């Protein structure tokens, strides 16, 4: 992925949620956004997705300038995995995936079904494909959400704290599923509290605090943090 963020500002009720962010990445596959809750990581991810508008600045993803929230064509090429899976509750797992492909991407069901079935098989969801989201575990639902994002063959997948509402066993299950994306050389940006996982899969780590990018670089910054804020954050996170 190529990502350019230039002087990005987002204010909400007189508080700067994103405070003059600038970042430039070239040819990276996995970017992990880390930081304490309220640091602006998820907000930044939503701005990159085109889901929310920002006040000023610029975001350019793979040469496309994300102008505003009405950028539907751009969003069709972005896969998004939400914190709480956000599968549509009235549809089965299979229908959740097919609905997007058929209605938004105009694909024929008969054309895409074999691909979708193969993805469900790969993510261990074949036997659950006709179940509704409430009939499967949180981990299975989150994996289904990853398949839904993957099925549209996106240029980039954005994952917003995909394991934060799961217990440790289900977290492990979902992180393994995300590793499949790494192996398949799919570009993604993940907001996560799983520092060990970020270190393992990401080629770039961005640490944010209070709406600012404090430090960014290769996963080595987690071994030898330069800023006191990242050091303090890591001390707290890794103290247990």
């Amino acid at each position, binding site marked *: 992925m190529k990502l350019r963020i230039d002087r990005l500002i987002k204010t909400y009720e007189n508080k700067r949620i994103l405070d003059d962010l600038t970042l430039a990445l070239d040819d990276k596959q996995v970017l992990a956004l880390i930081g304490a809750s309220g640091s602006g990581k998820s907000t930044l991810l939503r701005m990159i997705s085109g*889901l929310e508008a920002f006040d000023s600045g610029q975001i350019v993803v793979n040469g496309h300038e994300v102008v505003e929230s009405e950028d539907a064509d751009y*969003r069709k090429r972005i896969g998004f995995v939400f914190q709480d899976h*956000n599968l*549509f509750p009235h549809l089965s797992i299979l229908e959740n995936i097919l609905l997007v492909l058929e209605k*938004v991407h105009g694909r024929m069901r008969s054309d895409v079904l074999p691909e979708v079935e193969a993805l469900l098989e790969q993510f261990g969801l074949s036997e659950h494909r006709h179940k509704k989201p409430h009939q499967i575990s949180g981990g299975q639902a989150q994996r289904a959400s990853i398949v839904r994002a993957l099925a549209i063959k996106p240029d980039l997948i954005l994952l917003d704290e995909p394991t934060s509402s799961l217990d440790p066993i289900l977290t492990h299950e979902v992180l393994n599923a995300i590793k499949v994306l790494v192996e398949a050389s799919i570009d993604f940006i993940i907001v996560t509290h799983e520092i060990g996982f970020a270190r393992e899969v990401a080629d770039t780590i961005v640490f944010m605090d209070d709406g600012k990018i404090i430090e960014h670089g290769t996963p080595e910054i987690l071994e030898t943090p330069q800023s006191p804020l990242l050091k303090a954050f890591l001390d707290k996170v890794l103290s247990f």
Partner: protein
Amino acid sequence: MRKIISFFSALGLYAIFFWFVSTSALEKTIDFTIYKQYYRVILNGWITTLTISAVSLVLALFVGLVLYFMRESKFKIFVYLSEIHKTIIFGTPLVVIAIIAYYYIGNAFNIDSKFWIGALTLALYIGAYIADIYKGAIESIHINQWQTAKMFGFTRYQTYRYIVFPQVITSILPPLAGQFAMTIKSSALLAYMSTDEFLNAIQTVQSISFRYPEGFLLVTVGYLVLTIPLILLVRMLEKKLNYKVNHEIEN
């Protein structure tokens, strides 16, 4: 078994009450002969009530949807048009609206059909309430789902068509069935615009026979035959939906 005994005991108490009222307040004996003679007129009136209510409800479903989307529109004029309509409807008795609709609005637009003026008036009236039913149900759809739809590139129409409406349809069924019962009852007020519906048919027979109590008895039974199944349907749907919601929470 205890439930059945309790039910029939309650029914018996009501029967005793009405028997007492009719024997103490009425001098004449009950005689339905004249109503038998005019049974065709009465039956036609009853069928008109049923038809007018059904047509009104179908129109009201559409009116309610239009009012809802006007309320949600970016253009403020539509928002106010919808709000003013609802305020007038909520604040005015149907009988007044029925009279104005028939004698003035219908006249101004040269609409002669009492049936259609009646149906349209009821539809505009009930539609205001149905708009609020839609609003409540649609607002119950979690913000996450709207955002997910937006994220995946669904258009506004597709979001409503494939994501919102399939989910709200089950939750609006019980209040809609209740609204249908209300439409049937409200249609009686169309007698004021001389629509040939059930109440008006009975009133016609009452005025020639002076057999008023029998007429009111028939009116009551005639409406109950229509509304009791709907009331039972509302209860059944609510129970079924409640079970579904609980079932989902448990899972």
